[in-house]
């Protein structure tokens, strides 16, 4: 699976400049795969950066090259859509550490030509954002009209506003948080252990072999997928209904629809995602705590961001990044005098609501982009 995934050609740039990482290590050069939509205005004032989530990619509004499915936010991004590509030049870059063309664990070692695997340095959300800034420099874009992201994408948007407030007019942060909670880290650890317990993982050096840790990755995805949904949503969708049978089998087949669904989700995921990338990106999220360098005061992270307009959205059924996390960010922003908007939307889909049909979110994103612009 992994080799087929890595055979896909992505549009990318390689920047021959070192990227100093939070870990103290450095990448000698950085490859960033990205997609863009719309036209950059002559004064370069209409650029919008979309940051993707853990298992997202740069194909925000184009068909996915591995699965053929529509872009993950095609409902939000396009001509006449809330992120209107008739107005904005939209950039979406594959994050550092990922498996869709940007530098990551599958990148070949410059010396040996063999995939780095676990030799790839551990990266952070801050490192991802630094790589995006290098891409914008390369494209000659000094300032963004907006940076938008949901979930891990929201973390990147917050990191952007903290690191380079002068480079953006507004930040739209959806279903996200300024830090990973113990519970967030715990779920990620379950996923990582599932991958590393798979004998096909081979300490991360599976790229050249004909085996890849698809079973471990599928289990990681199954566990994570539960956290993206709500109990009410699962109950409504599946209840205790059985899968294609009249009675329980008194065995360990997928008797229940919910089991069958999760197994399918897990398996399908391995067609489009690399196990090592999953390890690296979940680690980056776990290390994320925007307040940490400021003695735990989140307001310290936004000290320079008072002229950035923020829009934060949470969902009432999202227990992964609950409303309290967004409120904490809003409080920090208010204390520095930044213009902040915040609303908790009601939607039944749990954390995944940001990707799904929530018409109020469309109106919010369109309005927030208009704000001051």
């Amino acid at each position, binding site marked *: 699976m992994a080799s087929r995934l890595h055979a896909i050609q992505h549009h990318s740039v390689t920047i021959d400049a070192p990227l100093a990482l939070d870990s103290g290590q450095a990448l000698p050069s950085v490859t960033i795969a990205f997609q863009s939509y719309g036209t950059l205005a002559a004064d370069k004032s209409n650029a919008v950066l979309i940051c993707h989530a853990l298992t997202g990619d740069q194909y925000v509004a184009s068909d996915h090259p591995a699965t053929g499915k529509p872009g993950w936010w095609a409902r939000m991004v396009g001509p006449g859509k809330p992120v209107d590509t008739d107005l904005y030049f939209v950039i979406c870059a594959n994050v550092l550490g990922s498996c869709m063309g940007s530098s990551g664990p599958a990148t070949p070692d410059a010396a040996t030509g063999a995939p780095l695997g676990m030799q790839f340095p551990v990266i952070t959300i801050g490192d991802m954002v630094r790589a995006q800034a290098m891409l914008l420099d390369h494209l000659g874009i000094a300032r963004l009209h907006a940076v938008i992201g949901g979930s891990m994408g929201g973390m990147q948007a917050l990191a952007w506003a903290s690191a380079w407030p002068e480079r953006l007019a507004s930040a739209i942060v959806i279903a996200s948080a300024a830090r990973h909670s113990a519970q967030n880290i715990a779920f990620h650890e379950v996923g990582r252990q599932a991958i590393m317990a798979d004998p096909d993982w081979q300490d991360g050096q599976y790229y050249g072999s004909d085996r890849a840790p698809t079973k471990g990755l599928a289990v990681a995805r199954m566990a994570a997928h539960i956290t993206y949904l709500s109990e009410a949503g699962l109950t409504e969708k599946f209840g205790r209904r059985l899968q294609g049978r009249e009675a329980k089998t008194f065995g360990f087949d997928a008797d229940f629809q919910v089991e069958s669904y999760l197994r399918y989700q897990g398996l399908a995921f391995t067609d489009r995602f690399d196990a090592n990338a999953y390890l690296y990106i979940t680690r980056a999220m776990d290390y994320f705590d925007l307040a940490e360098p400021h003695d735990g005061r989140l307001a310290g992270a936004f000290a320079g961001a008072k002229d950035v307009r923020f829009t934060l959205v949470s969902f009432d059924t999202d227990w992964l990044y609950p409303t309290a996390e967004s409120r904490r960010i809003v409080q920090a922003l*208010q*204390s520095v005098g930044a213009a902040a908007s915040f609303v908790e939307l009601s939607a039944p889909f749990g954390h995944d609501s940001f990707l799904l049909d929530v018409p109020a979110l469309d109106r919010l994103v369109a309005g927030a982009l208009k704000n001051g612009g």
Partner: protein
Amino acid sequence: MALRPDLAIIAAAVPARARALDIGCGDGELIAALRDKGVDARGLEIDPSNVTAAIARGQSVVQGDANRDLIDYPADGFDYAILSQTLQTTERPDRVVGELLRIAPRAFVSFPNFAHWRVRLALLWNGRMPVTRLLPVAWYETPNIHHVTVSDFRQLIADKGIRVERAWYLSGDKPTSDAAASWRAEHAIFLISRG
């Protein structure tokens, strides 16, 4: 669409380029009028569909509760705090007024006058809690949990050492005099400042 008369008075009285926080801003009607004249106006609103509507208009509005969330705003973050038609719905109006004048040196407070003659007559003749144009909801379901009169409010701010810079009194959409306000004003708007 014409602004509600009390909002029109407030919109006219806030100078351009001031920073204003509209507490209980609804769907952003006053904020829109303020922004039109160059005021940096933001809002706090409890109802999420109103907040969504305001943000969709391009405004900066936070979903929150005036009873609980005003403490999150820093002192003197704004030039004006605005509380229109909301005071009588708060749990502790005295504390909310204190918060307004911590967030900003000046505040507009508007409320329906519970001592308007129609209200008095309704109580006097019928012995029933009045249901009027500005107080349209029966006692058991009204959000107005602290009915207040012009005299009550004057007393509260005198007790707290707060200064009244200006006051407007409306009967329907027509102004009425200071002296007659207690009886004749359906609606009062105070511009107050720290004493």
